[in-house]
């Protein structure tokens, strides 16, 4: 996995050109291009796709610096410089929205990221092949349930009057809690349900990495009298470290984007103080109130922050001599 990424990600600034500059004469190259026309035809639909749905919106991002109006389009609307960014930074919601986004992102990294690794290490040590397969299949199945249904399940199971959880709380003599309607419960529910749904799916990647570790290492360690825990610590963990690093960097790179759809679904008027994140704010301000330029600016703020985080952590990983994206 790391290798695919390493090859296919954009070159970092300092990468030296690996190939010596051997240029074929132009007519020959044109001939080669002409001979490959069928390949270009095959690629055309995909190219049109990214041109229209990826690069055109990127080009349109300039409206973050303009006052967009539909008549003049992306390029015709008047420039206003950083006005929208300044307005966002000065708005009373800025601290709350950015804070919520970072909270959810950091909780996701600290709590949800390690759990699949632990699960994979445990499953990998199971003796019974059948139990191993069964565990894998069961833990992995919620990934196939849609986010809408998972959030719907949360609403019914956590319902204050009839939900399973509150019935259990009442049985134990507690007071029912209105989970979906309280800001302080938003984060725990969000993270727990995320683990419930996705940990098994992420686990599989680590299991694959573990299966690539040379069994001879384990045999040698066993002969030396190492316990399972010691072998996990000194063989398994170092063995999967490159994969962990790459997935961690990718998670960082997506830090501020993950879970947007779920946060939107989980939002109620009552938990808004904790559930309004940058992306949901963009959705509300942009699409529901039609403040296109303002919310495009906020979206751009989000994307740039993300990119900076990705570059920073990739740089840190490189300095630490771990696997990197490029």
């Amino acid at each position, binding site marked *: 996995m790391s290798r*695919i990424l390493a090859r296919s*990600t*954009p070159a970092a600034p300092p990468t030296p050109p690996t190939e010596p500059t051997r240029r074929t004469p132009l007519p020959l190259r044109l001939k080669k291009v002409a001979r490959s026309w069928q390949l270009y035809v095959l690629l055309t*639909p995909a190219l049109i796709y990214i041109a229209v749905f990826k690069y055109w919106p990127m080009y*349109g991002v300039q409206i973050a610096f303009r006052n967009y109006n539909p008549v003049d389009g992306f390029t015709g609307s008047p420039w206003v410089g950083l006005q929208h960014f300044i307005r966002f930074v000065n708005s009373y919601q800025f601290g709350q929205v950015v804070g919520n986004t970072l909270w959810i992102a950091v909780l996701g990294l600290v709590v949800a990221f390690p759990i699949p690794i632990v699960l994979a290490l445990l499953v990998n040590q199971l003796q019974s092949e059948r139990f191993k397969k069964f565990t894998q299949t069961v833990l*992995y199945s919620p990934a196939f349930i849609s986010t809408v249904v998972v959030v*719907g399940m949360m609403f019914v199971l956590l319902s204050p009057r009839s939900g399973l959880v509150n019935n259990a709380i009442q049985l134990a003599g507690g007071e029912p809690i209105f989970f979906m309607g309280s800001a302080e419960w938003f984060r725990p529910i969000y993270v727990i349900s995320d683990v419930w749904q996705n940990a098994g799916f992420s686990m599989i990647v680590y299991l694959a990495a573990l299966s690539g570790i040379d069994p001879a290492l384990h045999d040698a360690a066993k002969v030396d009298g190492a316990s399972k825990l010691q072998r996990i610590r000194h063989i398994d963990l170092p063995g999967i470290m490159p994969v962990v690093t790459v997935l961690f960097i990718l998670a960082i790179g997506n830090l501020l984007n993950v879970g947007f759809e779920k946060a939107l679904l989980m939002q109620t008027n009552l938990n808004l103080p904790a559930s309004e994140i940058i992306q949901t704010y963009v959705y509300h301000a942009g699409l529901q109130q039609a403040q296109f330029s303002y919310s495009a600016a906020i979206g751009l703020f989000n994307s740039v922050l993300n990119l900076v985080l990705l570059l920073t952590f990739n740089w840190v990983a490189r300095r630490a001599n771990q696997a990197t994206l490029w």
Partner: protein
Amino acid sequence: MTLNTKPVATPAPAQRNRPGTNDPGPGRTVPFREKWADKAFNITAITILTLSIIAVVYPLYFIVIASVSDPNAVYEGKVWLVPSGVTLEGYQRILADSRIWNGLGNTLVYTVLGTAISVTTILCGAYALSRKDMPGRKILMLLFVVTMFFDGGLITKYLVVRDLGMLDTVWAVVLPGAVGVWNLIIARSFFEHTIPGELREAAQMDGANDFTFFFRMVLPLSKPLIMLMIMVHVVAHWNSFFDALIFLNDDTKYPLQLVLRNILIQSDVSSTGTTGGDIQSYAAAQRIAELTKYAMIVVSSLPLMIALPFMQKHFTKGTMIGAVKS
């Protein structure tokens, strides 16, 4: 937009003796007795995994039994392990609800059309990019990869779709998320590793051009990849709601997930017959509505859950190709 959120990297571990186990394999003896530390570890591991399995399965199981139980029993917390007062009223109400049927029909259309478009585009594009002799391959690949790390954001994408006149059409659901770059990379590395260059040379000797070679040789050799791509997109389309949410206003075009969201999460109980004016019949309608929600969760997840064992095989087989190379 929702199509490339989940990296398709789920290879299952190989079937040989697993490195971490004490299973010495046929014809060998265990060199020494298991230590107490390992026994303690095994017990802990099995306990943790069993608890995780219960944590994953019980909510699902509860939803199933609650969906066939008397809503009053669920409400009073009498349903824990077996259904009580079995009734199929929830299911009857769903079957009678035209919105569900309409949503299901739309989802089927979006899924079939969207999968066909995505898979065709990805297979053709990935094959072209896998050809090392295609001029400009590196630059073209870079164009795709850049979009993984930076995108124009929600607002500009919305404006582009609007400018194209696609709002409230099938295309708005099917096209904007059609090509996931991650899937493209997986397909490309599949082609790179399974289609030998010699085969192409031989075919070219026999007079095959790139088209004939791709359609007559490459595609028949790529069945596991094609299956994988079809499945990834079927699952993604079946579960997606967000593009429909932002691009569709006409609720007769809503896919199933969006209908579910409106009923499950937004608690739109309009169709559940709140005819009686008095509080009692309102409360009864409210309970039936809850019952309907349980049934609805079951009905909407069942197809994928039934298909899961079958799909898992392909996910596993297919992604061994893309994810881990050594």
